[in-house]
């Protein structure tokens, strides 16, 4: 019987099987941010076990509220900063170099095919785009990861999603994943890895694959995962060129992680996206998804472009294509947050920041901020936000606020109209 990519990664990292069905795996990356790590640090100190298993494999960033907005967030940042310094972590990202974790860490080349990755953040599944097993965990799992370099999981059963056809103009990875979540439901992939396959995924950039994998958790999935290929190697090449003679050799090597043809899947879902239209959420769960034409005209108070889902350069380029030479509606507050300093810098160099500013957007520094209602764009009671983020839970962006999830293109179009709008009317 063949194996899936997730099974191959588990087999190669297996440390222990304390009970049937429980797999304790060695970790290649333990990623940390200032919201969920400080209590793990405090607990390690209290237990007199303030150690790290490997200072080169633990990466840390201050990203959720940065620059700190008050004494409490400053304290969280300080706890992480002091700890990173105390243990001489090889990579710690503070003000000026920090960005949204799930955009920053891949950009630094930290995530490789076949890796096991955990972080105290549910959207860690993003990193599966590189052919890694990457799971969001709680603070206790993070703490044990920091101390011992291991984490326990159940057997990685996999749902394979074959995405066929050709993505029509005006639709993007975000529309695909919203549609997939609407098909699976918010718990349709609980305890499962979601393996994204098919020609549409093969044709996607790494940025798009990250958008796809980012929202695996919104269907309950443990990790999203894509098979590493030429696109993966091209993205990683600056970081791996010392390890391989040439790209072909790297591509061939990464092939060892590919799922076997006779691998066993718990479920295979085949979708054809050739007739897909832009997708938008309604209500308060990410599986409440409608085609944009059923949502057109819904007034919005704020438009937010950014986050670990859609704050990458490709996303900003798409939004800028629609915004170029236009003004956003007077009734709308536009906020764009490039996800990392590099993305910000590239957007500056390409004139994209100027497009946003001339359209009337406020450009913020890289941070998670508004997505979870912590800073930089919290909603008031009764307000509505068109957002490129990943969660529309009640109160997510501020108590009493409403969030509609959509692609950067749909968000940009909605900013211009002041109501949810179909981006295709701006690009055709």
């Amino acid at each position, binding site marked *: 019987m063949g194996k899936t990519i997730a099974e191959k990664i588990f087999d190669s990292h297996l440390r222990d099987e304390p009970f049937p069905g429980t797999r304790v795996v060695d970790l290649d990356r333990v990623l940390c941010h200032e919201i969920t790590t400080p209590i793990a640090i405090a607990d390690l100190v209290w237990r007199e076990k303030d150690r790290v298993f490997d200072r080169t494999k633990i990466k840390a960033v201050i990203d959720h509220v940065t620059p700190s907005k008050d004494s409490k967030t400053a304290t969280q940042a300080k706890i992480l900063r002091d700890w990173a310094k105390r243990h001489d972590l090889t990579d710690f990202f503070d003000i000026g170099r920090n960005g949204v974790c799930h955009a920053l860490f891949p950009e630094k080349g930290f995530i490789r095919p076949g890796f096991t990755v955990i972080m105290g953040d549910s959207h860690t599944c993003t990193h599966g785009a590189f052919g890694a097993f990457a799971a969001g965990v709680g603070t206790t799992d993070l703490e*044990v990861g920091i101390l011992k370099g291991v984490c326990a999981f159940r057997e990685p059963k996999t749902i394979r999603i074959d995405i066929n056809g050709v993505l029509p103009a005006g639709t993007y990875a975000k529309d695909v994943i919203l549609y997939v979540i609407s098909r699976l439901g918010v718990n349709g992939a609980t305890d499962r890895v979601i393996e994204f396959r098919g020609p549409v995924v093969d044709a996607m950039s790494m940025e798009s694959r990250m958008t796809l994998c980012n929202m695996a958790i919104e269907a309950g999935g443990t990790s999203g995962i894509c098979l590493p290929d030429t696109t993966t190697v091209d993205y990683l090449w600056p970081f791996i060129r010392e390890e391989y003679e040439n790209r072909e050799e790297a591509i061939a090597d990464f092939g060892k992680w590919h799922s076997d043809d006779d691998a066993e899947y718990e479920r295979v879902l085949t979708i054809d996206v050739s007739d897909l239209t832009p997708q938008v959420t309604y209500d308060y769960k990410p599986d409440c998804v409608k085609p944009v034409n059923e949502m057109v005209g819904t007034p919005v108070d704020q438009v937010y472009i950014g986050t670990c889902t859609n704050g990458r350069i490709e996303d900003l380029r798409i939004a800028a294509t629609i915004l170029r030479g236009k003004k956003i509606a007077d009734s709308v507050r536009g906020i764009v947050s490039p996800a990392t300093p590099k993305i910000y810098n590239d957007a500056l160099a390409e004139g994209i920041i100027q497009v946003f500013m001339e359209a009337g957007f406020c450009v913020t520094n890289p941070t998670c901020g508004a997505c979870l*209602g912590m800073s930089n764009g919290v909603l008031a009671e009764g307000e509505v936000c068109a957002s490129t983020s990943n969660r529309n839970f009640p109160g997510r962006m501020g108590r009493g606020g409403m969030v509609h999830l959509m692609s950067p293109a749909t968000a940009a179009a909605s900013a211009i109209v002041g109501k949810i709008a179909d981006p295709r009317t701006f690009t055709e």
Partner: protein
Amino acid sequence: MMKKFGGPALFLDRSDINTDEIIPAKYLTEVTKEALKPYILEDLQIEGFDPKGDAVRRARVIVTRENFGCGSSREHAPWVFEVNEIHAVIAESYARIFRQNMFNGGMLAIELPKEEINRLFNMVGGGEVEIGIDLASGKITARAGKEREETFAFEISPFDKALVEAGGWVEFADQRY
């Protein structure tokens, strides 16, 4: 050290209750578990539910529906229960990270089939429902008043049971790795 389980039940009659409803993100700036205590279930809006009410204050067990604890990985969700002395949740199903966080902290996330969860909900209205949980025998006893008693058998995985017995994943991992 193993925690104590059982006591008055709080019934939350909705599926997909998420971690933002259990503990809103704005409180994630706290750096101690105790500081979370007053904010339990603050943003949960279910008809007749009052997060500041007596039923929440008295509760030692939560009974709820499907996919409980979905969304964020924040362990603040199990912690806000822990500091309010709620050490067990009984639900039809859980989100993976929330379930693991409960067991990692030495607490119980028990799954029962839909019909049995319905039987538990049917006891609401007959006064406070008191729930006893016996981990060794895998038995739950629910009592409402003097007349009404229902029993349920439950199973948790050997690993989850070992975590609860050890007092949590840090203790378990520290002895073994």
